[in-house]
C-alpha cells in the first residue's frame, strides 16, 4: 500500500529552483532514504511534505489524500510524525512531558484546564521512552540533554501519534557512530512492526546503505536516481554527483 | 514636635478616643493628602505656607487650647493612592477631617471617599466644577475659584474686546475641555456675534508647540483663549512669540497671572494678555503685607498662589473649629455652610456657600506685563468670586446631591 505519493513537486526561492518537479512514492513499512549533495533541495523537499513550506506546484498525497499545502498541525492529525535536522523539543519541560504533550495532542486533550497533566498519558509516554531508550532520563529537562539523546526524544515524540508516515531529517546527525546504527536499526524495526513508511535524509552513507530499503537521489532540485541501495550505488550519475565524496559513496 | 507634646499625643492615642478628644490640649488632627512628588513646583510653596499657618495658630494658643496637627501624605498623582492614604488617616491616625487635593480627579476621589466614610473633606486646590456641582456631596467643600468662575471672570473682559474670531487652545483633559466649553458658552451669551474658528487640544505635558501654534495661526483668529499652563505654556509662548502668533491679537488666558506659571517664563513672559492670577508683589493692604512678610521670613521665598490657597484653607478650618463646640463631622458641616473667614489676599471676607459648598474666594484679573525682566500683572483688580456664579436656580439643577 502506498503511504506517500509525491507528484511533480516544485519550489523556487527567489528565482532559484530548489526543487524542480520531483515525484516518488513510499510504501507502508518501507524505509526510504533521500540523499543528495548539499544544496540539492533535500530540506526544501522535506519541508514541503509536512506543510512547513508551500510548494509552487505539484501534489503530496498521503494514503491517497491530497495534503498539499496543509499546515503541519493538520498533517500531524493525519498520521505524520516528524523529526528535525536541528532538534526541536520543549527545553523547559521534562522528557516525559515532551512525549505527554504529543500524546495528549493526538488524543485532542490539550484543552484541559483543570486536571494536571502529570497524571495523564504518563504510562504511555514512558512506554514510548522505553522503546527509544530514554526512560532513565524521563524526568530531566530537555534543555540539558546531550544531542544524541534529544534525537531519541524527538523520535519518541514523532511516534506519539502512531504515525503511518515518519519524516526524519538527518535523524542521526551529531551522534556517535555506534549510536547512529542503533537508532536507525530501531527505526527500521519500528517501521516493519508498525507498517510505518519512513522517509529520511542523511549524510552518513553508512547509515543510508545499512538501513534504507530504497534510495532516491536529488541533485539541483531534480531526482536523478531511484532504486535499491546497490542500484543507486552503481548508478553513474550518482557517482558523478558524489565525485568529490566518491570514497564514501563507493567505498562500501 | 517637642518631646512633651509627643507624649501628649501618645497619651491621646492610648486613651479611649472619645476621652482623648474631650481632653484639653490634645491636638486636632487634619489629614492632608496631595501630589507632593508629582507636582512639587506647585505644592512645595503650598505646604510651606500650610506649615506656617498652623505654626502661627498654635503659637497663638491653638483652637480653644488645643493645637492643630497636620499629617501630610503624598499620593504620587494617583487617585487610588490618595484614597488609600485617606483610609489610613481616618482609621489609623484618627484625623478629625481631610483636606488637600491638587488634581481634579484626586479631589473627586477624595470627595467621594469622604462621602462614603462620612468625614469632612476640604478641597483646597482642585478646579473641576464637578467637585461641587455634578458630583458634589454634603461632606465636600471647595476653596479655590472653580473652572466656571475663572472663565466667567475672563469672559467679562473678553466681551469688551472688539475681537469676533476666536481660537482656543487647551490641554486635552477635563479641565481644559470644560474651560473651553464654559468660555464659549458664556462669551456667546455675552456677545452673540462671536465665532470660534479653531480649537487645539494638545496632550497635557506633551504639547507639540510648533505645530499647535501654526495650526492656530492658520485659522486667522482675532483673539485667542488659552488654557495651557506649566511646561506646555512655556513652549507655547516661545513658539508663539517667535512665529508672531500673538502680534496684533488679543490673548485671554486662565491662571497665567499666577506666579507659579508666570515666573518660569522669565523675560519671555507675554505682555498684554488678559489673565487671572495673583500679583503678589503689588498687593499692599495690611493683611496681605503681613502674610507676605511672614512667609518670606519663615521660608526665605516669596509666596505663590498655592501659598495663599493653603493659608486660606487653614484659616477656614481654624475658623470653623473655633465656632464648633464638638469637633465632629456633622457639626463641622453645619458650621462650614455659610462660614465666613478673611482671605490672606486682604480683600475682605470669603464665605462657603451653603447652596453648593463652594467658597466665594476670588482671583485677580489683569494684564500681563514685563518688569525688570520678569512677568507681572498690571491694571489688575480683585474679582470677588461671589459675583461669578450662575443663578441659584441654575446651581440647583447642576448640583444634584442632597443638601
Amino acid at each position, binding site marked *: 500500500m502506498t503511504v506517500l505519493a509525491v507528484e511533480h513537486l516544485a519550489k523556487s526561492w527567489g528565482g532559484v529552483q530548489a526543487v524542480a518537479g520531483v515525484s516518488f512514492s513510499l510504501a507502508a513499512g518501507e524505509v526510504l532514504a533521500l540523499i543528495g549533495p548539499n544544496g540539492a533541495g533535500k530540506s526544501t523537499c522535506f519541508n514541503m511534505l*509536512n506543510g512547513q513550506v508551500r510548494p509552487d506546484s505539484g501534489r503530496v498525497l498521503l494514503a491517497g489524500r491530497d495534503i498539499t499545502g496543509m*499546515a503541519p*498541525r493538520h498533517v*500531524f492529525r493525519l498520521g505524520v510524525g516528524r523529526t528535525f535536522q536541528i532538534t*526541536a*523539543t*520543549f527545553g*523547559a519541560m521534562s522528557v516525559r512531558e515532551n512525549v*505527554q*504533550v504529543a500524546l*495528549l*495532542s*493526538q488524543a485532542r486533550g*490539550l*484543552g*484541559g484546564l*483543570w486536571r494536571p*497533566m*502529570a497524571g*495523564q498519558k504518563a504510562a504511555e509516554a514512558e512506554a514510548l521512552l522505553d522503546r527509544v531508550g530514554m526512560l532513565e532520563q524521563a524526568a530531566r*529537562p530537555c534543555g540539558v540533554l546531550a544531542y544524541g539523546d534529544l534525537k531519541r526524544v524527538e523520535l519518541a*515524540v514523532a511516534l506519539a501519534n502512531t504515525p503511518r508516515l515518519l519524516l526524519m531529517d538527518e535523524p542521526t546527525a551529531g551522534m556517535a557512530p555506534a549510536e547512529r546504527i542503533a537508532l536507525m536499526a530501531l527505526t527500521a524495526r519500528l517501521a516493519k512492526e508498525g507498517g510505518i513508511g519512513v522517509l529520511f535524509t542523511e549524510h552518513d552513507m553508512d547509515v543510508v546503505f545499512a538501513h534504507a530499503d530504497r534510495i532516491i537521489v536529488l541533485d539541483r532540485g531534480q531526482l536523478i536516481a531511484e532504486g535499491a541501495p546497490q542500484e543507486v550505488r552503481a548508478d553513474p550519475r550518482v557517482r558523478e554527483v558524489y565525485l568529490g565524496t566518491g570514497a564514501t559513496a563507493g567505498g562500501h | 514636635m517637642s518631646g512633651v507634646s509627643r507624649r501628649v499625643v501618645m497619651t491621646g492615642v492610648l486613651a479611649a478616643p472619645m476621652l482623648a478628644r474631650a481632653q484639653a490640649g490634645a491636638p486636632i488632627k487634619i489629614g492632608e493628602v496631595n501630589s507632593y*512628588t508629582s507636582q*512639587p*513646583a506647585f505644592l512645595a510653596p503650598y505646604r510651606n505656607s500650610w506649615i506656617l499657618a498652623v505654626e502661627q495658630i498654635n503659637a497663638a494658643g491653638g483652637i480653644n487650647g488645643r493645637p492643630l496637627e497636620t499629617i501630610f501624605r*503624598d499620593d504620587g498623582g*494617583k487617585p*487610588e493612592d490618595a*484614597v488609600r*492614604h485617606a483610609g489610613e488617616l481616618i*482609621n*489609623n491616625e484618627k484625623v478629625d477631617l481631610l483636606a488637600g487635593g491638587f488634581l481634579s480627579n484626586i479631589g473627586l*476621589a477624595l470627595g*467621594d*471617599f469622604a462621602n*462614603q466614610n462620612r468625614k469632612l473633606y476640604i478641597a483646597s486646590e482642585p478646579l*473641576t466644577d464637578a467637585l461641587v456641582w455634578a*458630583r458634589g456631596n454634603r461632606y465636600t467643600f471647595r476653596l479655590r475659584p472653580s473652572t466656571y468662575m475663572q472663565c466667567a471672570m475672563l469672559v467679562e473682559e473678553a466681551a469688551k474686546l472688539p475681537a469676533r474670531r476666536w481660537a482656543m487652545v487647551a490641554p*486635552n*483633559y*477635563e479641565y481644559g475641555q470644560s474651560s473651553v466649553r464654559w468660555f464659549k458658552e458664556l462669551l456667546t451669551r455675552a456677545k452673540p456675534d462671536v465665532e470660534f474658528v479653531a480649537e*487645539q*487640544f*494638545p*496632550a497635557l*505635558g*506633551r504639547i*507639540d*508647540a*510648533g505645530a499647535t501654534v*501654526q*495650526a492656530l*495661526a492658520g485659522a486667522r483668529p482675532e483673539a485667542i483663549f488659552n488654557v495651557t499652563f506649566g*511646561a506646555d505654556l*512655556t*513652549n507655547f509662548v*516661545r513658539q508663539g512669540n517667535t*512665529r*508672531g502668533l500673538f502680534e496684533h491679537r488679543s490673548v485671554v488666558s486662565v491662571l497665567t497671572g499666577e506666579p507659579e506659571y508666570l515666573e518660569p*517664563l522669565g523675560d519671555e513672559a507675554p505682555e498684554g494678555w488678559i489673565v487671572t492670577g495673583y500679583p503678589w508683589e503689588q498687593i499692599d493692604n495690611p493683611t496681605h503685607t503681613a502674610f507676605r512678610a511672614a512667609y518670606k521670613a519663615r521660608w526665605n521665598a516669596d509666596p505663590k498662589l498655592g501659598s495663599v490657597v493653603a493659608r486660606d484653607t487653614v484659616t477656614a478650618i481654624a475658623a470653623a473649629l473655633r465656632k464648633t463646640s464638638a469637633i465632629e463631622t456633622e457639626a463641622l458641616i453645619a458650621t462650614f455652610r455659610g462660614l465666613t473667614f478673611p482671605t490672606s489676599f486682604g480683600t475682605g471676607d470669603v464665605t462657603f456657600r451653603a447652596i453648593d459648598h463652594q467658597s466665594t474666594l476670588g482671583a485677580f484679573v489683569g494684564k500681563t506685563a514685563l518688569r525688570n525682566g520678569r512677568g507681572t500683572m498690571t491694571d489688575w483688580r480683585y474679582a470677588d468670586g461671589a459675583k461669578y456664579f450662575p443663578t441659584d436656580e441654575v446651581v440647583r439643577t447642576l448640583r444634584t446631591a442632597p443638601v
Partner: protein
Amino acid sequence: MDDLVVQALSGLASASSLFLVASGLTVIFGVTRVVNFAHGSLYMLGAYVAWSLVTHGVFAFAGPFWQFWGGILGAAVVTAAIGAVIEVLLLRRIYRAPELFQLLATFGVVLVVQDVALWAWGAQDLLGPRAPMLRGAVRILGLRFPLYELFLIAVGPLVLAGLWLLFHRTRFGVLVRAATADREMVAALGVNQALLFTGVFALGAGLAGLGGALQLPRESVNLHMDLSTITEAFVVVVVGGLGSLTGAFLAALLIGELSAFGILILPKITLVLVFLVMAVVLVVRPYGLLGRAPQGLHASSGPPDPLLLPAPRALRQLGAVVLALLVGSAWVLPDYELSVLTEILVALLFAASLHFIMGPGGLASFGHAAYFGAGAYAAALLVQHAAAPMWAGMLLAPFAAGLLGLVFGWFCVRLSGVYAAMLTLAFAQIAWSTAFQWVEVTGGDNGILGVWPDAWAQPKPVFYLLALVLCVGGAMLLRRIVWAPFGAALRAGRDSPLRAEAIGIDTFRTRWMAFAISAAFAGVAGSVFAYAKGSVFPTYLGISRSVDALLMVLLGGVQTLSGPLLGAVALTGLQEQLMRGTDHWRLLLGATIILLVVFFPQGLAGAARAAWEKRA
C-alpha cells in the same frame, strides 16, 4: 496652501527632535538588547546639565557662541559619561539575566534620577536661553518660521549621516553593526564585549543627552520630561524596526508629520496618535518599517528556563500557613491594614495574570493594565448605568476584560519579543485614551465615582475576605491551568513553536486563548480594586499600572510560579511603607530595586529557589 507647507516644516522639526532621542535608544537595543527605560531620564539629565552649563557660563570664556554651544555639547558628553557609569556599575552585572530583566534595573534608575534631579535643580520649570544667531525667525512663503526649528530640521539628517559614517567607516562601528546582527558571532571573534557594550551605551546615552540639550532653546526643562519622552522614543524605535537607524528616522518623520497634520483635522487626536500609528504599523509589518525578524530574541541571553517543578512540601506548608494567617487577619487587623492587604491581594492576582502570559506564554505584555482597567470599568459602568449589585459587576468584569483580551490578543500574539510587548502597549494606550476621552460614558479623567460594595460587603473585614477568596482563588486557578494540559501546550508553543505545530498544536490559538484567560483574571483583579477604592479612573489603564505589574513579575522572577506573588507583595508593600514614611520614596524604592536586581538576578523567588536547591 502656504500654511500647509509651514505646518509640514513644523512636523519636520518635531521629527528631528524625536529622532535624536530614538537613535540612541535603537543603537543601545540593537547591540545590548536592553530595553532601556532610563533613556528618558538621560534625555532629561541632558537638558538639565545643558541648562546648568549654559546659564552658569561654564564656557563663557570662549565667547557667547561657545558659552551656548559648548554647554550643549558638554551636556552630551556628561550624559554619555553617566550612561557609561550606569552600564559598568549596573547593567554589566545582569546581561545574563532573563530577557527584559534589565528593564527592571533601568526603571530603578528612572526613580532615582527623578529624586536626584528634584534635589539638584529644584521643582520649578527652568527656561534656558535661546541659541545665539538662531534667535529669530525667517519668512517662508510670507509666514514666520523660527530659525532654530530650521536648524533642528537639519540636525536630524546630520546626526543620521554622522552615525552612518561612524558605523561604516570605523572599527567600532563595524563591530556595533556586527553585534546588532549577531551577538554570539562578535563574542566568538574575541572582541572585548564588555568594552563594546560600555561604548555603545555611552554613545546612546550621549545621543539622548544631546537630544535633551537641544530642546533648551525650545522648551522649558522640567521634571516630567523623562516619562513624557520615553514612550514616544520607544514607539519611534519599534515603528522603525528595532536596531535600525534609518527605520527610526523614517518613523520619526512619519510620526512628526502625522502629528502636525493630524491636529488640523482632529485636534483631540494628540492623546493617542502615536499609539495608533504604532498599532497600524505593527499589524501590517510585524517587525516595524525596516526591521528584520529577530534572530533568537527569546533565547538571546541567559540559560534556558528551568523546569517547572511542583512546589516542595515545605513550600506548600508555608503557603498553607500564610493562607491561614491571611484568613485570620480578617478578625485581628484594623481596617486600614486590611485595606492595604486587600490592595496587595489585588496586586497579587494582577501580577499572576500577567505572569501567566509572560512566563508560560512567553509573551511580555507592556499593556496589561488595559484588562485590569476593563474589569474595573465594566463593574463601574454597570453600577453607574444599571445600578447593578456588586456581584453582577464582579461577574461581568472577567468577561469584559476577556473579550477585550480576545480582540487585542488576536493581533498581539502573532508578534514576538519586544514587538509584541509594544503592540500590547499601543492597544492599552488606545483603551486608555478611550476611557479618557469618551467623557459621556466614562466620565473622562474625572472617572466614575460611587463604586462602593453592596451593604453586606462594606465592612472592611468582609470585603477583605471576599478579595482573599477571589484573588488567591484566581491565582491558584491560574497556577492549576499552568500544570494542566492547556498550560503544557502553552509552554510547548513558547519553547519551540516549530515542534508544537508539528505535533498538532495550534500555537496561535493556544496563545490567543491564554491571552484572553490572562486578561479575564486581570479583569477580576480590576473589579475588586474598583470596589475597594470606590472609584475608577483612566489611570487604572495607564502605563504606570502596566509597568507596576511588569515590575512585580520581574522582581519576583518570571521563571517560577510563585515569583509574581512574591514580587507583588514586595513591591506593593514596599511602596506603601515608603510613600507613607518619606517624600523621598522614589529614591529609596529605586535604590532598593537596583540592589535587588544586582543581588538577585533571577528574581526573589528564583534566588530563594537557588538557595533552597543548594541546601538540598
